[in-house]
């Protein structure tokens, strides 16, 4: 891994942290028309995000033990980008269905959060452990690498929270912001894949010229 790819991985982890909290914050806005804005709405949303992140860490860590590569890392981003899209395109229908079938708005909001946010957040959660796997080359420094990674991704979360709630909601529609997150994640995934391919090509060139 070159320092250039390392910087990219940190930037990707930052962006995923940014998107996770941006989406979580907008979750309250998305659910309010159907389930209100009582405190249990946040209970539902935070529960689902924490739960799915915890599973994401587990799965991401497991996944990183087999043929870890920047391409696979990029694919995680692409998947995340795609699984975020139903929030934009189907949330009204999904919430309407749940609203008419579940009377209690606590369980209604929990179910709706589950359907809308569980899968994309699991996938976004996979990014952190996978990043550690790609970044660590020396076990002596593994703790330090993990520390920097948490720093970067949590900083992303903090900025994602404040920028979304202070500024983006004033300038854009909720759906446009989510689409923006999806697009960013997708493009970053493609960038990671492209970089891996070109690095691989260079590597082949170098090794063939040596021969």
């Amino acid at each position, binding site marked *: 891994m070159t320092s250039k790819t390392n910087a990219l991985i940190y930037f990707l982890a930052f962006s995923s942290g940014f998107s996770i909290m941006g989406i979580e914050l907008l979750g309250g*806005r998305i659910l*309010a*028309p*159907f*389930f*209100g*804005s*009582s*405190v249990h709405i946040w209970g539902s949303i935070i529960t689902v995000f924490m739960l799915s992140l915890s599973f994401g860490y587990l799965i991401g860590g497991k996944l990183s033990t087999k043929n870890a590569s920047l391409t696979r890392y990029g694919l995680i981003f692409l998947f995340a980008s795609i699984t975020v899209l139903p929030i934009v395109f189907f949330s009204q229908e999904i919430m309407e269905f749940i*609203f*008419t079938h579940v009377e209690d*708005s606590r369980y209604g909001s929990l179910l709706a959060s589950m359907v809308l946010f569980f899968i994309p957040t699991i996938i976004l959660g996979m990014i952190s452990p996978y990043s550690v796997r790609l970044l660590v080359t020396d076990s002596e420094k593994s703790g330090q690498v993990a520390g920097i990674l948490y720093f970067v991704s949590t900083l992303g979360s903090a900025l994602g929270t404040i920028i979304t709630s*202070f500024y983006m*909601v*004033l300038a*854009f*529609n*909720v*759906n446009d912001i989510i689409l923006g997150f999806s697009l960013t994640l997708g493009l970053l995934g493609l960038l990671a894949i492209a970089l891996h391919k070109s690095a691989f090509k260079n590597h082949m060139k170098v090794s063939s010229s040596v021969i």
Partner: protein
Amino acid sequence: MFKYLSLIVLVLLSFTSFSKVIHSERSLYRNIIVDENGNKRCLKFNTKSSKTNQSCIFKDDPQKLVFNYAKLVFSSLLMIDDPKKVLIIGLGGGTLSNTIHQLYPDAYIDNIEIDPAVTNVAREYFSFFENDKITATTQDGRIFIKRAKLKKQKYDWIILDAFNGDYIPEHLLTKEFFEETKNILSPNGIISANTFSISKLYFHESATYYDVFGDFINVSNKKNSNRIILAGYTEQPSDEVIKARVEKLYPLLKPFDIDIREIRSNMISTKDNIDWPEDTKVLTDQYSPANLLNL
């Protein structure tokens, strides 16, 4: 000299009445304070300043309405015949419910309040009462209205009073919410909304109401920044009809210290009188930063 001075101090002191807190609690949503200042008992949210008064009563004359906005709400009665089913979103001290019941003992009144602590305080300190015609439900207003639509309920008079001075539930100020409210309004019904907006939000709010209801009526008075929006009517009653209603209601509303004649003169339709820029953004579920616009 000193004698006079102390006399003046004494006189001044007797004029300055101190408010005393008789109840305070922290609910799930806010701090609730009930305080008394002489003859006046008020419900306050969050702070002790009078700016956040939600509801007040005169202890020696509980019939009399204290707040101007509460009086302005009764302008709605000039737009409809006697209401039979009334929906109030946002209970506060329950003053509106009590007053409407006294005016129309046969009318059904549903009060919706998100905070059960507010309902309890209204019962205990502001003589809010329920009976077989008056209900109080603890629920988010938006959810109640959505469910009412599923149950095909209709109301003749819908009062939106869920905003307090410093916080607006943003999902109750969107095009979609107004459309849902319109859906449960009976054909000859009226929606009256109590709004606090004096800022940039005033334009957004007006544009949103206009988008859903077409022309509406602003009721305000020069004295303060409150305005009541009357919307949802299909046709504005003729001047003769309104005049007849004013005369009929005047003696009925007088005991509540509501001067319907004066209120009548403060009703302005948006017809030929649009006071917001044409390109004002309508608030929707997708775009509703009401509290940020209200800064």
